[in-house]
């Protein structure tokens, strides 16, 4: 049963109603929602498990308003009141009883709507798709904690497969790095490049294994080249870095190349300097060419 219009409630525009119906049809085997209503069990023995679940949780608000931007019908407001109508007043015919979504503790936060076998539950699914507490929902209220999350099994499978693919790609890249590339990578990561190659390889593989997406992006990007080049030049005594204001200078003349000031976004000095060399134009390009040529000729003198 679809979310029926009763009086002022659920008077949705045909477009929005169609979207909701399409959304329900995306899940022909039923729709499952995850309610994030547990709290961590403070009991150090965790006797009853890692999490505590309320015995009965009731979703609020039960009646809410949304702004239906698809509404173009004459005389209709865009603001709609949404509710699951349970009954009408005998005399006035106005809706005065409403269903509420309740989740029992024993379900461990999983709310299963078997819309495939029980069409009456379609109404409940449509209601939850409109709810302001649905994470990434059409009408999510960013000021409320998103208690409800749609369990999209296909999406989860897609993401799991993508993660697996990324991991394989990252591990392949990590395994196939030459010794030179390992040193380059270590320098870019601001690691100690004098460490044994085996130890550096281990670090790289751990990184590829734990955060493959970041690893792949980093290897593909130009940042690796710049970060490694800057670190090498510092180690060779070509450049000098003053971390108090992220100031990079030529070591022999003390002539500054760039001072970026204190980091506001949590990025490391190397990352910020690499980004500057990548995007700052002619001045940065000229300095970079010089750094590259000196890097080729100078011998490494120290570690920072």
């Amino acid at each position: 049963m679809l979310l029926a219009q009763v009086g002022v409630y659920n008077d949705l525009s045909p477009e929005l109603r169609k979207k909701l119906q399409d959304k329900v049809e995306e899940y022909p085997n039923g729709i499952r929602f995850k309610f994030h209503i547990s709290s961590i069990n403070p009991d150090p023995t965790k006797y009853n498990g890692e999490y505590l679940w309320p015995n009965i949780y009731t979703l609020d608000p039960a009646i809410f308003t949304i702004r239906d931007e698809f509404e173009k019908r004459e005389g209709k407001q865009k603001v709609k009141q949404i509710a699951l109508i349970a009954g009408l007043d005998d005399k006035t015919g106005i809706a005065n009883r409403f269903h509420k979504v309740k989740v029992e503790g024993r379900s461990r936060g999983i709310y299963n709507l078997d819309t495939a076998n029980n069409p009456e539950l379609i109404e409940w699914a449509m209601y939850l798709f409109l709810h302001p507490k649905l994470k990434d929902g059409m009408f999510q209220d960013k000021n409320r904690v998103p208690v409800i999350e749609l369990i999209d099994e296909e999406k989860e499978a897609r993401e799991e497969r993508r993660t697996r693919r990324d991991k394989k790609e990252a591990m392949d890249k990590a395994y196939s790095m030459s010794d030179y590339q390992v040193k380059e990578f270590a320098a870019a990561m601001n690691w100690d490049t004098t460490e044994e190659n085996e130890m550096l390889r281990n670090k790289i593989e751990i990184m590829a294994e734990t955060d493959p997406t970041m690893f792949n992006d980093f290897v593909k990007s130009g940042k690796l080249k710049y970060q490694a080049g800057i670190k090498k030049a510092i180690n060779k005594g070509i450049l000098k870095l003053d971390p108090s204001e992220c100031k990079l200078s030529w070591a022999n003349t003390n002539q500054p190349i760039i001072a970026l000031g204190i980091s506001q976004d949590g990025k490391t000095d190397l990352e910020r300097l690499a980004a500057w060399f990548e995007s700052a134009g002619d001045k940065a390009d000229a300095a970079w060419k010089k750094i590259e040529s000196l890097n080729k000729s100078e011998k490494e003198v120290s570690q920072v």
Partner: protein
Amino acid sequence: MAVTQGTVIKSYVSAIDFLDQRDIDPNIYDQSRDRAFTDIMKIVNRYKPATMFYYNNFVNNDVYEVGTISAVSTTGLAQIQFTINTASTFPRVGDLIMTSNSNNIGKQARVQVVTFGSGTATLTVRSVGGNAVPFYATVGDSVAFSSNAFAEKSDAPTNRRYGLTKYYNNIQIFREVDEISDVQKVAKIEVNVGGDYHILPYQTIQKVIKMNGDISVQMLAGSQSSTLFNDASPFLADPTSGLPVQTTGGLDWYCINYGINDQAASLGTFGFTELDDIIDNFIANKAPLDYFVFMGSRSYRIISKFLKQLGSSSVDSRRLNVDGKTFDFNVEHLSYGGYEFDFVHVPIFDHPQLFSSTLRADVNGSLYLVPKDSVDTVDNGRQARIQIRHTPTPLMGTSANKSANGIITEWRTGALAEIPTGSVMQLHTDWETAQGLECLAVKHFQKYRIV
């Protein structure tokens, strides 16, 4: 002042410094009324010693379980097979089942085979009515394992092990302090407390009211800390010493985390729908029938208006208790649906600086339903539903500058104490207590927001 001629008038006398008397009422009037507003003795009036700073209690688990059918292999036959979701291994051969399927009204089936999967159990069941009475199953049906039946010379059924559920809360350390110098301690003021014209008694009374208020607030709406005193790397810690701080969960915390937490579909309305809701929630948890309903004035007014039928445009005077010139709009008791409710207005819910409708709207506008009975133990003992647990005072012995009521300890230090403890001319008074709330069998407690 030189002698002058003329009538002695008010301004002439008032011009002479310090000559006019001042009319100052020596009493200090209790306008803040925090003492009255923070009293929760209507809710909690029992203390029980604790031996540790964390206290646990166990409750028994339900002896029955209900399964939900998740897949059906065969249906509409005298012997059918289906799968249920179950977190435990409750079903066993020999169980007699009843289900919610409308085709199974008046029918029972016996479990003949059970195969457990991961979180599932596949059951083969046989209708007790034979071939003439087929049994049905559809996904979503509820299955009750309500009885059992065995053959002659039968072997024992599979043994079930019943677990226990543990509830847990913390003792919280509360402190308050007062400091006064030698000069101000003896300097007199114009108002008095109990005939004492000094500032110290007033300060002391305010501090004690605040401390008792802090305890009340925590017992009502405290949130249990995840940090415990025995944490080696505490999250909630004193920034100087790095030592852990722990807090106790209050009645609201118990209801939200362990009990029933519900609310009216449309806040501001209360009627039979909401009453039915409250009772249905209790029935779902096999709760007792007799309740205290603790609440603030806003909620009480809405309930009274509904029960006196004042919500509509007309007033049905037969429902009002008119005694001479007094209209009594308060409803104190309700019997409905087999349940008894005693409505208790507790002022702390209305406290504007603690639980106002804008500050903590959920607490201010909720009913807290607590069973009136004592909870039974499985061996027929009894315990109060709500008690304050407190640890013994850590302070040793008796002395002239220390006093305690068994729960809160007060001690005085500094050069001005009864027994001077230092050289600095000041009196330093400390209050300390360690308390926590304990609610028993909280599955039967309900928070129901109505406004």
